[in-house]
């Protein structure tokens, strides 16, 4: 039964409660890095990694440090410092492994720290009732994975559409951000369809 619960968390964070298109989190990288498919993929994978790791560490810190010492109100500051450290680590790895990707991601790589979807998943993990059960840590990590994959999915879809929009004939005043938001709205409407899914 636990396996089923994990599967439900994964599917619902990817599709039904997609972090970008239904909960409106992580829009800055969604708009900033969705111009080209390959940099979108690199960004997505970096976010998946940071989200899974952040879910893991922030959950442990919250459950075994902040709650026992009754300092749960320090949640925000503790979580953001963990995330900043992780992002620094990912940045160093990407810089060494793939300098090309490092340059195409540019300013958006250090900005994963201020990607609200990452802090969002860490905060939501502490509020989702995972703290009491035995498999809480696993559920938190699965939610992090689902949130990251959902973000990557939305980013890839958007990048695919925007590559085509480059050559499309759009009214002058709609070019740039306005047309991107209209596309995002249409995608969000499509994703609303998943909310009828019974899992």
């Amino acid at each position, binding site marked *: 039964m636990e396996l089923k619960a994990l599967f439900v968390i994964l599917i619902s964070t990817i599709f039904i409660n997609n972090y970008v298109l239904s909960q409106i989190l992580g829009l800055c990288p969604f708009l900033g890095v969705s111009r080209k498919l390959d940099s979108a993929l690199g960004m997505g994978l970096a976010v998946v990694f940071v989200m899974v790791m952040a879910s893991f560490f922030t959950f442990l810190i919250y459950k075994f440090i902040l709650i026992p010492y009754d300092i749960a109100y320090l949640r925000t500051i503790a979580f953001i410092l963990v995330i900043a450290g992780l992002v620094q680590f990912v940045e160093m790895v990407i810089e060494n492994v793939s300098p090309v990707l490092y340059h195409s991601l540019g300013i958006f790589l250090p900005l994963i720290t201020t990607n609200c979807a990452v802090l969002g998943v860490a905060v939501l993990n502490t509020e989702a009732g995972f703290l009491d059960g035995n498999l809480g840590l696993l559920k938190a990590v699965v939610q992090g994975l689902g949130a990251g994959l959902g973000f990557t999915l939305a980013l890839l879809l958007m990048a695919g559409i925007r590559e085509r929009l480059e050559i499309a004939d759009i009214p002058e005043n709609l070019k740039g951000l306005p047309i991107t938001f209209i596309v995002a*709205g249409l995608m969000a409407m499509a994703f609303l369809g998943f909310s009828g899914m019974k899992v």
Partner: protein
Amino acid sequence: MNYYREFAKGIWEKNPILILGIGMCPTLAVSTSVSNALWMTLAATFVLIFSNIIVSLVKSVVPSHIRIPIFIAIIATFVIIVELTLKAFQPDIYKSLGIFIPLIVVNCIILGRAEEFASKNTVLPSILDGLGMGVGFGLTLTVLAFFREILGSNRLFGYTLIPGMEPATIMTLAPGAFFTLAMMLWGMNAMKSRKGR
């Protein structure tokens, strides 16, 4: 230094949302009702002003390569103050803004102003800059929330507008947020290009 300009640039000329295109997540997510928008503005402006003050005071002491974590820690401190205050005095608002209160920490506007303005200027201009950016953010947010609340829930400040009319619920959901902001940006581009002609 022209103090009025430091204040006024945030409202139109360098409006954080419409011109700079930052701080989108809280803008779209909490603009479901005007009262949510106003409380969010109040909370974000408080954090913006006070983090600008502290950053402008400590700017000469902070080593430049670790400035970002230090700025984030300063911002997070004020966010926790806001979080605890709202929880104690406005529990309903705290509940309806939900995770977007802790997420003020990662609002790009606040870190952006700390990095771009407060770390290079003295205290008084930094306060005015924070206030102006807060007002610019709040105005955009409120206009957005105004349309979304009327269309999406047929209400304004909690009062029903047209009795018996079925509201378009989609306007309070994510698609409505994206479409309304797209319309605002479109209108603004149209105004700019007309002026340029």
